[in-house]
Protein backbone atom coordinates (compact mmCIF):
# COMPACT_ATOMS: atom_id res chain seq x y z
CA UNK A 1 0.00 0.00 0.00
CA UNK A 2 2.80 2.33 1.01
CA UNK A 3 4.60 1.50 -2.24
CA UNK A 4 1.51 2.40 -4.16
CA UNK A 5 1.20 5.74 -2.32
CA UNK A 6 4.88 6.53 -2.90
CA UNK A 7 4.58 5.69 -6.59
CA UNK A 8 1.35 7.57 -7.16
CA UNK A 9 2.95 10.84 -8.44
CA UNK A 10 5.22 8.79 -10.71
CA UNK A 11 2.23 6.92 -12.15
CA UNK A 12 0.48 10.21 -12.78
CA UNK A 13 3.58 11.58 -14.57
CA UNK A 14 3.88 8.45 -16.73
CA UNK A 15 0.22 8.66 -17.64
CA UNK A 16 0.58 12.37 -18.47
CA UNK A 17 3.67 11.63 -20.62
CA UNK A 18 1.78 8.94 -22.53
CA UNK A 19 -1.04 11.39 -23.13
CA UNK A 20 1.41 14.06 -24.35
CA UNK A 21 3.17 11.51 -26.54
CA UNK A 22 -0.10 10.49 -28.15
CA UNK A 23 -1.07 14.12 -28.65
CA UNK A 24 2.31 14.88 -30.20
CA UNK A 25 2.04 11.94 -32.61
CA UNK A 26 -1.46 13.04 -33.60
CA UNK A 27 -0.24 16.63 -34.03
CA UNK A 28 2.72 15.53 -36.20
CA UNK A 29 0.52 13.25 -38.32
CA UNK A 30 -1.94 16.08 -39.04
CA UNK A 31 0.81 18.60 -39.91
CA UNK A 32 2.69 16.15 -42.16
CA UNK A 33 -0.57 15.22 -43.90
CA UNK A 34 -1.49 18.87 -44.51
CA UNK A 35 2.02 19.64 -45.84
CA UNK A 36 1.88 16.60 -48.12
CA UNK A 37 -1.59 17.58 -49.36
CA UNK A 38 -0.34 21.12 -50.11
CA UNK A 39 2.63 19.68 -51.99
CA UNK A 40 0.49 17.40 -54.15
CA UNK A 41 -2.07 20.15 -54.80
CA UNK A 42 0.69 22.56 -55.86
CA UNK A 43 2.33 19.90 -58.01
CA UNK A 44 -0.96 19.59 -59.90
CA UNK A 45 -1.17 23.37 -60.28
CA UNK A 46 -4.26 23.85 -58.13
CA UNK A 47 -2.58 26.40 -55.88
CA UNK A 48 -0.95 28.53 -58.59
CA UNK A 49 -3.38 31.48 -58.11
CA UNK A 50 -2.66 31.53 -54.36
CA UNK A 51 1.08 31.31 -55.05
CA UNK A 52 0.88 34.20 -57.48
CA UNK A 53 -1.22 36.36 -55.14
CA UNK A 54 1.01 35.87 -52.09
CA UNK A 55 4.20 36.45 -54.09
CA UNK A 56 2.71 39.65 -55.46
CA UNK A 57 1.77 40.79 -51.95
CA UNK A 58 5.21 40.04 -50.56
CA UNK A 59 7.21 41.42 -53.50
CA UNK A 60 7.49 45.05 -52.20
CA UNK A 61 8.70 43.90 -48.76
CA UNK A 62 11.21 41.43 -50.16
CA UNK A 63 12.55 44.05 -52.57
CA UNK A 64 13.04 46.63 -49.80
CA UNK A 65 14.71 44.11 -47.50
CA UNK A 66 17.00 42.90 -50.30
CA UNK A 67 18.02 46.51 -50.97
CA UNK A 68 18.67 46.97 -47.26
CA UNK A 69 20.85 43.86 -47.31
CA UNK A 70 22.79 45.13 -50.32
CA UNK A 71 23.25 48.58 -48.75
CA UNK A 72 24.50 47.02 -45.51
CA UNK A 73 26.90 44.78 -47.38
CA UNK A 74 28.22 47.73 -49.37
CA UNK A 75 28.71 49.77 -46.21
CA UNK A 76 30.50 46.88 -44.51
CA UNK A 77 32.78 46.34 -47.49
CA UNK A 78 33.38 50.08 -47.68
CA UNK A 79 34.82 50.05 -44.16
CA UNK A 80 37.64 47.84 -45.32
CA UNK A 81 38.21 49.35 -48.73
CA UNK A 82 41.18 51.51 -49.41
CA UNK A 83 39.65 54.31 -51.40
CA UNK A 84 42.51 55.04 -53.75
CA UNK A 85 43.14 51.40 -54.55
CA UNK A 86 39.45 50.95 -55.07
CA UNK A 87 39.32 53.80 -57.59
CA UNK A 88 42.28 52.43 -59.48
CA UNK A 89 40.70 49.03 -59.35
CA UNK A 90 37.43 50.36 -60.77
CA UNK A 91 39.27 52.15 -63.60
CA UNK A 92 41.22 49.01 -64.46
CA UNK A 93 38.14 46.86 -64.27
CA UNK A 94 36.30 49.21 -66.60
CA UNK A 95 39.17 48.97 -69.02
CA UNK A 96 39.18 45.17 -68.79
CA UNK A 97 35.43 45.11 -69.17
CA UNK A 98 35.59 47.18 -72.35
CA UNK A 99 38.33 44.97 -73.72
CA UNK A 100 36.41 41.82 -72.81
CA UNK A 101 33.26 43.15 -74.44
CA UNK A 102 35.24 44.08 -77.55
CA UNK A 103 36.88 40.66 -77.55
CA UNK A 104 33.53 38.87 -77.34
CA UNK A 105 32.14 40.93 -80.18
CA UNK A 106 35.29 40.56 -82.28
CA UNK A 107 35.41 36.78 -81.88
CA UNK A 108 31.76 36.50 -82.84
CA UNK A 109 32.28 38.84 -85.76
CA UNK A 110 35.18 36.76 -87.08
CA UNK A 111 32.99 33.66 -87.17
CA UNK A 112 30.12 35.52 -88.75
CA UNK A 113 32.42 37.00 -91.39
CA UNK A 114 33.97 33.65 -92.13
CA UNK A 115 30.59 32.26 -92.97
CA UNK A 116 29.56 35.37 -94.90
CA UNK A 117 26.32 35.71 -93.00
CA UNK A 118 24.45 38.67 -91.63
CA UNK A 119 27.29 41.14 -92.06
CA UNK A 120 25.05 44.09 -91.51
CA UNK A 121 23.48 42.56 -88.42
CA UNK A 122 26.86 42.57 -86.69
CA UNK A 123 26.74 46.36 -86.48
CA UNK A 124 23.74 46.00 -84.26
CA UNK A 125 25.74 44.64 -81.40
CA UNK A 126 22.83 43.65 -79.24
CA UNK A 127 19.65 43.27 -81.26
CA UNK A 128 17.44 42.50 -78.32
CA UNK A 129 14.34 44.06 -76.85
CA UNK A 130 14.95 44.22 -73.09
CA UNK A 131 13.03 44.92 -69.91
CA UNK A 132 14.82 45.66 -66.61
CA UNK A 133 13.89 43.97 -63.33
CA UNK A 134 14.96 44.16 -59.70
CA UNK A 135 16.12 40.98 -57.97
CA UNK A 136 13.74 40.59 -55.02
CA UNK A 137 14.84 37.25 -53.60
CA UNK A 138 18.17 35.51 -54.08
CA UNK A 139 18.93 31.81 -53.71
CA UNK A 140 17.49 31.08 -50.26
CA UNK A 141 18.55 27.49 -49.56
CA UNK A 142 20.72 24.62 -50.63
CA UNK A 143 18.25 22.97 -52.99
CA UNK A 144 18.16 25.19 -56.07
CA UNK A 145 19.87 28.21 -57.61
CA UNK A 146 16.89 30.41 -58.31
CA UNK A 147 16.09 34.12 -57.98
CA UNK A 148 12.81 36.01 -57.99
CA UNK A 149 12.50 39.17 -60.09
CA UNK A 150 10.02 42.03 -60.00
CA UNK A 151 8.54 41.51 -63.47
CA UNK A 152 5.88 39.07 -64.53
CA UNK A 153 3.24 38.15 -67.06
CA UNK A 154 1.86 41.70 -66.90
CA UNK A 155 5.16 42.94 -68.36
CA UNK A 156 5.16 40.39 -71.17
CA UNK A 157 7.36 37.74 -69.57
CA UNK A 158 6.90 34.09 -70.47
CA UNK A 159 8.73 30.98 -69.32
CA UNK A 160 11.95 30.29 -71.19
CA UNK A 161 13.05 33.89 -71.76
CA UNK A 162 16.74 34.58 -71.29
CA UNK A 163 17.80 36.79 -68.38
CA UNK A 164 21.04 38.76 -68.59
CA UNK A 165 22.91 40.63 -65.89
CA UNK A 166 26.17 42.33 -65.06
CA UNK A 167 28.40 42.06 -62.02
CA UNK A 168 31.18 44.51 -61.32
CA UNK A 169 32.25 45.95 -64.60
CA UNK A 170 32.18 42.70 -66.58
CA UNK A 171 30.21 42.40 -69.80
CA UNK A 172 26.46 41.86 -69.81
CA UNK A 173 25.99 38.10 -69.82
CA UNK A 174 23.41 35.34 -69.48
CA UNK A 175 22.60 34.55 -65.83
CA UNK A 176 19.49 32.39 -66.17
CA UNK A 177 16.24 31.49 -67.84
CA UNK A 178 12.73 32.45 -66.70
CA UNK A 179 11.22 29.35 -65.13
CA UNK A 180 7.80 30.30 -63.78
CA UNK A 181 5.85 33.51 -64.30
CA UNK A 182 3.30 35.08 -61.99
CA UNK A 183 1.34 38.25 -62.66
CA UNK A 184 3.98 40.64 -61.25
CA UNK A 185 6.91 38.39 -60.42
CA UNK A 186 8.87 35.61 -62.03
CA UNK A 187 11.39 33.04 -60.86
CA UNK A 188 14.60 32.63 -62.80
CA UNK A 189 16.53 29.35 -62.81
CA UNK A 190 20.18 30.41 -62.72
CA UNK A 191 22.68 29.09 -65.25
CA UNK A 192 24.68 27.58 -62.39
CA UNK A 193 21.80 25.28 -61.34
CA UNK A 194 22.20 21.62 -62.24
CA UNK A 195 18.79 21.67 -63.90
CA UNK A 196 19.80 24.35 -66.40
CA UNK A 197 21.01 22.97 -69.74
CA UNK A 198 21.60 25.14 -72.78
CA UNK A 199 23.05 24.73 -76.25
CA UNK A 200 26.07 27.01 -76.60
CA UNK A 201 28.63 28.02 -79.16
CA UNK A 202 32.32 28.07 -78.25
CA UNK A 203 34.17 30.73 -80.19
CA UNK A 204 37.94 30.75 -80.50
CA UNK A 205 40.32 32.13 -83.10
CA UNK A 206 37.75 32.33 -85.84
CA UNK A 207 36.30 28.88 -85.28
CA UNK A 208 33.12 27.93 -83.55
CA UNK A 209 31.98 24.68 -81.95
CA UNK A 210 28.58 23.66 -80.65
CA UNK A 211 28.31 22.16 -77.17
CA UNK A 212 25.91 21.58 -74.30
CA UNK A 213 26.33 23.64 -71.12
CA UNK A 214 25.02 22.58 -67.73
CA UNK A 215 25.05 24.26 -64.31
CA UNK A 216 27.31 22.64 -61.75
CA UNK A 217 26.59 24.34 -58.42
CA UNK A 218 25.18 21.12 -56.91
CA UNK A 219 28.45 19.43 -57.96
CA UNK A 220 30.71 22.07 -56.48
CA UNK A 221 31.54 24.04 -59.59
CA UNK A 222 29.85 26.67 -61.77
CA UNK A 223 29.34 25.82 -65.45
CA UNK A 224 30.49 22.88 -67.51
CA UNK A 225 30.58 22.21 -71.24
CA UNK A 226 29.89 18.71 -72.49
CA UNK A 227 29.04 16.94 -75.73
CA UNK A 228 31.06 19.38 -77.82
CA UNK A 229 31.50 18.68 -81.52
CA UNK A 230 34.41 16.33 -82.01
CA UNK A 231 35.81 18.16 -85.03
CA UNK A 232 37.65 20.76 -82.97
CA UNK A 233 39.36 20.94 -79.59
CA UNK A 234 38.15 23.03 -76.66
CA UNK A 235 40.76 25.49 -75.49
CA UNK A 236 41.30 27.57 -72.39
CA UNK A 237 40.33 31.19 -72.95
CA UNK A 238 37.69 30.41 -75.58
CA UNK A 239 34.51 32.43 -75.34
CA UNK A 240 31.15 30.78 -74.73
CA UNK A 241 27.94 32.31 -76.09
CA UNK A 242 24.40 30.98 -76.38
CA UNK A 243 23.67 29.04 -79.59
CA UNK A 244 19.89 29.53 -79.62
CA UNK A 245 19.43 26.15 -81.29
CA UNK A 246 15.95 25.51 -79.84
CA UNK A 247 14.67 28.71 -81.47
CA UNK A 248 16.52 28.09 -84.75
CA UNK A 249 15.15 24.59 -85.07
CA UNK A 250 11.67 25.94 -84.27
CA UNK A 251 11.05 23.48 -81.45
CA UNK A 252 7.93 24.34 -79.51
CA UNK A 253 9.80 24.56 -76.19
CA UNK A 254 10.17 27.41 -73.67
CA UNK A 255 13.92 27.61 -74.41
CA UNK A 256 13.09 28.70 -77.99
CA UNK A 257 12.99 32.24 -76.56
CA UNK A 258 16.73 32.23 -75.79
CA UNK A 259 18.44 34.03 -78.68
CA UNK A 260 21.87 33.19 -80.02
CA UNK A 261 24.97 35.19 -79.26
CA UNK A 262 24.42 36.04 -75.58
CA UNK A 263 27.84 36.07 -73.87
CA UNK A 264 28.01 33.49 -71.08
CA UNK A 265 31.63 33.12 -69.98
CA UNK A 266 35.10 32.00 -70.80
CA UNK A 267 36.65 28.52 -70.65
CA UNK A 268 38.77 28.17 -67.53
CA UNK A 269 39.99 24.62 -68.05
CA UNK A 270 39.49 22.28 -70.99
CA UNK A 271 39.94 18.55 -71.40
CA UNK A 272 40.03 16.84 -74.80
CA UNK A 273 40.20 13.18 -73.92
CA UNK A 274 39.83 10.99 -77.01
CA UNK A 275 36.38 11.69 -78.37
CA UNK A 276 35.26 13.40 -75.16
CA UNK A 277 35.35 17.17 -75.02
CA UNK A 278 34.51 18.95 -71.80
CA UNK A 279 35.47 22.19 -70.09
CA UNK A 280 34.81 24.30 -67.00
CA UNK A 281 33.44 27.73 -67.77
CA UNK A 282 33.90 30.90 -65.70
CA UNK A 283 30.75 33.01 -66.12
CA UNK A 284 31.14 36.69 -67.00
CA UNK A 285 28.40 37.58 -64.52
CA UNK A 286 28.11 35.84 -61.14
CA UNK A 287 24.39 34.99 -60.83
CA UNK A 288 24.62 35.09 -57.02
CA UNK A 289 25.77 38.71 -57.06
CA UNK A 290 23.44 40.37 -59.56
CA UNK A 291 21.08 43.01 -58.22
CA UNK A 292 19.40 44.19 -61.40
CA UNK A 293 18.76 42.06 -64.46
CA UNK A 294 17.31 42.45 -67.93
CA UNK A 295 14.94 39.98 -69.53
CA UNK A 296 15.28 39.54 -73.29
CA UNK A 297 11.69 39.88 -74.50
CA UNK A 298 12.49 39.38 -78.15
CA UNK A 299 15.21 39.52 -80.71
CA UNK A 300 14.80 42.38 -83.20
CA UNK A 301 15.33 40.85 -86.61
Amino acid sequence: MRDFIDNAPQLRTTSSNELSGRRLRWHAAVLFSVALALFVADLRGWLQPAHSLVEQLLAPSTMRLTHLHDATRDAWQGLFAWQQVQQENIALRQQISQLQAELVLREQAVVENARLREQLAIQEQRPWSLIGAEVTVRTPDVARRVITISRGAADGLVAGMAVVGQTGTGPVALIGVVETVNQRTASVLLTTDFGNRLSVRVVHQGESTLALMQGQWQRGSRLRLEQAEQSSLLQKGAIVVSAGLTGKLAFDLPLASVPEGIPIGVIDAAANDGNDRYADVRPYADPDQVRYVWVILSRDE
Partner: protein
Amino acid sequence: MGDPQPRRVEVRIIIELARIAGMIVLALVQVTLMPMLGGVPVPLVLLWLLCWLLVQIEMHGTLARTALVLRLAFYGGVALDFLTAMRLGSHALALMSAIVLAALLCGQLRVELLVLAIPALAGAVLVYAVGLALIYHSTTIALEWQPYAVAVLAPAIALAVLVGMPLYLMMRWRLRS
Protein backbone atom coordinates in the same frame (compact mmCIF):
# COMPACT_ATOMS: atom_id res chain seq x y z
CA MET B 1 -18.20 39.96 -17.38
CA GLY B 2 -19.10 37.20 -19.85
CA ASP B 3 -18.01 33.60 -20.20
CA PRO B 4 -14.25 33.18 -19.87
CA GLN B 5 -14.16 30.27 -22.40
CA PRO B 6 -14.72 32.37 -25.59
CA ARG B 7 -12.08 34.85 -24.41
CA ARG B 8 -9.55 32.05 -24.05
CA VAL B 9 -10.25 30.91 -27.60
CA GLU B 10 -9.80 34.48 -28.84
CA VAL B 11 -6.52 34.80 -27.02
CA ARG B 12 -5.37 31.49 -28.47
CA ILE B 13 -6.22 32.63 -31.98
CA ILE B 14 -4.37 35.91 -31.49
CA ILE B 15 -1.31 34.09 -30.13
CA GLU B 16 -1.39 31.67 -33.08
CA LEU B 17 -1.67 34.55 -35.57
CA ALA B 18 1.28 36.25 -33.85
CA ARG B 19 3.28 33.04 -34.23
CA ILE B 20 2.40 32.84 -37.93
CA ALA B 21 3.43 36.49 -38.39
CA GLY B 22 6.67 35.82 -36.52
CA MET B 23 7.53 32.89 -38.77
CA ILE B 24 6.75 34.93 -41.90
CA VAL B 25 9.13 37.65 -40.67
CA LEU B 26 11.81 35.07 -39.91
CA ALA B 27 11.39 33.54 -43.39
CA LEU B 28 11.58 37.02 -44.94
CA VAL B 29 14.80 37.69 -43.06
CA GLN B 30 16.25 34.37 -44.25
CA VAL B 31 15.56 35.00 -47.93
CA THR B 32 16.48 38.69 -48.01
CA LEU B 33 18.83 39.78 -45.22
CA MET B 34 20.91 36.72 -44.39
CA PRO B 35 24.29 36.73 -46.12
CA MET B 36 25.52 33.72 -48.09
CA LEU B 37 28.78 32.47 -46.63
CA GLY B 38 30.98 30.87 -49.27
CA GLY B 39 27.97 30.60 -51.55
CA VAL B 40 26.01 28.59 -48.96
CA PRO B 41 22.84 30.19 -47.57
CA VAL B 42 22.14 30.20 -43.81
CA PRO B 43 18.89 28.29 -43.02
CA LEU B 44 17.82 30.76 -40.33
CA VAL B 45 14.28 29.40 -39.81
CA LEU B 46 15.57 25.87 -39.24
CA LEU B 47 18.38 26.97 -36.91
CA TRP B 48 16.14 29.22 -34.85
CA LEU B 49 13.53 26.45 -34.40
CA LEU B 50 16.15 23.82 -33.59
CA CYS B 51 17.92 25.94 -31.00
CA TRP B 52 14.62 26.88 -29.39
CA LEU B 53 13.58 23.21 -29.36
CA LEU B 54 16.85 22.18 -27.70
CA VAL B 55 16.48 24.81 -25.00
CA GLN B 56 12.84 23.88 -24.39
CA ILE B 57 13.71 20.16 -24.12
CA GLU B 58 16.36 21.03 -21.57
CA MET B 59 13.95 23.14 -19.52
CA HIS B 60 10.65 21.27 -19.84
CA GLY B 61 11.34 17.76 -21.19
CA THR B 62 11.07 16.24 -24.66
CA LEU B 63 7.33 16.30 -25.19
CA ALA B 64 6.51 19.67 -23.69
CA ARG B 65 7.05 21.99 -26.64
CA THR B 66 7.78 19.70 -29.60
CA ALA B 67 4.21 20.01 -30.89
CA LEU B 68 4.48 23.79 -30.85
CA VAL B 69 7.86 23.75 -32.63
CA LEU B 70 6.40 21.40 -35.26
CA ARG B 71 3.56 23.83 -35.83
CA LEU B 72 6.01 26.74 -36.11
CA ALA B 73 8.07 24.67 -38.59
CA PHE B 74 4.94 24.18 -40.67
CA TYR B 75 4.18 27.94 -40.72
CA GLY B 76 7.81 28.84 -41.48
CA GLY B 77 8.04 26.18 -44.18
CA VAL B 78 4.95 27.37 -46.02
CA ALA B 79 6.19 30.98 -45.78
CA LEU B 80 9.54 29.91 -47.27
CA ASP B 81 7.76 28.07 -50.08
CA PHE B 82 5.79 31.19 -50.97
CA LEU B 83 8.94 33.34 -50.88
CA THR B 84 11.14 31.00 -52.88
CA ALA B 85 8.78 29.80 -55.62
CA MET B 86 9.08 26.20 -54.43
CA ARG B 87 6.17 23.75 -54.35
CA LEU B 88 4.01 24.50 -51.30
CA GLY B 89 4.78 22.06 -48.52
CA SER B 90 8.38 21.35 -49.63
CA HIS B 91 10.09 23.39 -46.92
CA ALA B 92 7.41 22.47 -44.37
CA LEU B 93 8.05 18.73 -44.89
CA ALA B 94 11.83 19.19 -44.73
CA LEU B 95 11.68 21.41 -41.64
CA MET B 96 9.28 19.15 -39.74
CA SER B 97 11.35 16.06 -40.55
CA ALA B 98 14.43 17.81 -39.16
CA ILE B 99 12.58 18.85 -36.00
CA VAL B 100 11.23 15.32 -35.43
CA LEU B 101 14.75 13.90 -35.81
CA ALA B 102 16.24 16.40 -33.35
CA ALA B 103 13.45 15.76 -30.82
CA LEU B 104 13.86 11.98 -31.10
CA LEU B 105 17.65 12.22 -30.77
CA CYS B 106 17.52 14.45 -27.72
CA GLY B 107 14.63 12.55 -26.15
CA GLN B 108 16.20 9.10 -26.48
CA LEU B 109 19.76 9.83 -25.41
CA ARG B 110 20.23 10.70 -21.77
CA VAL B 111 23.24 12.90 -22.30
CA GLU B 112 23.89 16.53 -21.37
CA LEU B 113 22.12 18.56 -24.09
CA LEU B 114 25.09 20.86 -24.49
CA VAL B 115 27.02 17.83 -25.78
CA LEU B 116 24.11 16.69 -27.96
CA ALA B 117 23.58 20.10 -29.55
CA ILE B 118 26.23 19.68 -32.26
CA PRO B 119 25.10 16.24 -33.51
CA ALA B 120 21.47 17.33 -33.21
CA LEU B 121 22.11 20.46 -35.30
CA ALA B 122 24.22 18.57 -37.85
CA GLY B 123 21.73 15.71 -38.14
CA ALA B 124 18.74 18.01 -38.45
CA VAL B 125 20.41 20.18 -41.11
CA LEU B 126 21.37 17.01 -42.99
CA VAL B 127 17.74 15.80 -42.93
CA TYR B 128 16.52 19.26 -44.00
CA ALA B 129 18.97 19.59 -46.89
CA VAL B 130 18.52 16.00 -48.08
CA GLY B 131 14.75 16.43 -47.84
CA LEU B 132 14.80 19.51 -50.06
CA ALA B 133 17.25 17.87 -52.46
CA LEU B 134 15.01 14.77 -52.68
CA ILE B 135 12.05 16.95 -53.59
CA TYR B 136 14.18 18.69 -56.23
CA HIS B 137 15.48 15.30 -57.41
CA SER B 138 11.99 13.83 -57.76
CA THR B 139 10.18 16.83 -59.24
CA THR B 140 12.80 18.60 -61.37
CA ILE B 141 16.04 16.81 -62.27
CA ALA B 142 17.97 13.78 -61.04
CA LEU B 143 20.87 14.93 -58.84
CA GLU B 144 24.21 13.21 -58.56
CA TRP B 145 24.41 12.53 -54.85
CA GLN B 146 28.13 12.11 -54.30
CA PRO B 147 29.22 15.49 -55.67
CA TYR B 148 26.15 17.08 -54.08
CA ALA B 149 27.15 15.70 -50.70
CA VAL B 150 30.69 17.05 -51.00
CA ALA B 151 29.93 20.39 -52.60
CA VAL B 152 26.67 21.36 -50.90
CA LEU B 153 25.72 19.17 -47.95
CA ALA B 154 29.04 19.18 -46.13
CA PRO B 155 29.51 23.00 -46.27
CA ALA B 156 25.83 23.50 -45.35
CA ILE B 157 26.18 21.31 -42.24
CA ALA B 158 29.44 22.96 -41.20
CA LEU B 159 27.94 26.41 -41.63
CA ALA B 160 24.78 25.46 -39.75
CA VAL B 161 26.79 24.18 -36.78
CA LEU B 162 29.02 27.29 -36.84
CA VAL B 163 26.03 29.64 -36.84
CA GLY B 164 23.71 27.42 -34.79
CA MET B 165 25.93 26.79 -31.77
CA PRO B 166 26.34 30.46 -30.79
CA LEU B 167 22.60 30.96 -31.37
CA TYR B 168 21.81 27.95 -29.16
CA LEU B 169 24.19 29.08 -26.40
CA MET B 170 22.73 32.58 -26.50
CA MET B 171 19.14 31.31 -26.29
CA ARG B 172 20.12 28.89 -23.50
CA TRP B 173 21.79 31.61 -21.48
CA ARG B 174 18.94 34.03 -22.03
CA LEU B 175 16.14 31.62 -21.15
CA ARG B 176 18.01 30.25 -18.14
CA SER B 177 18.76 33.66 -16.74
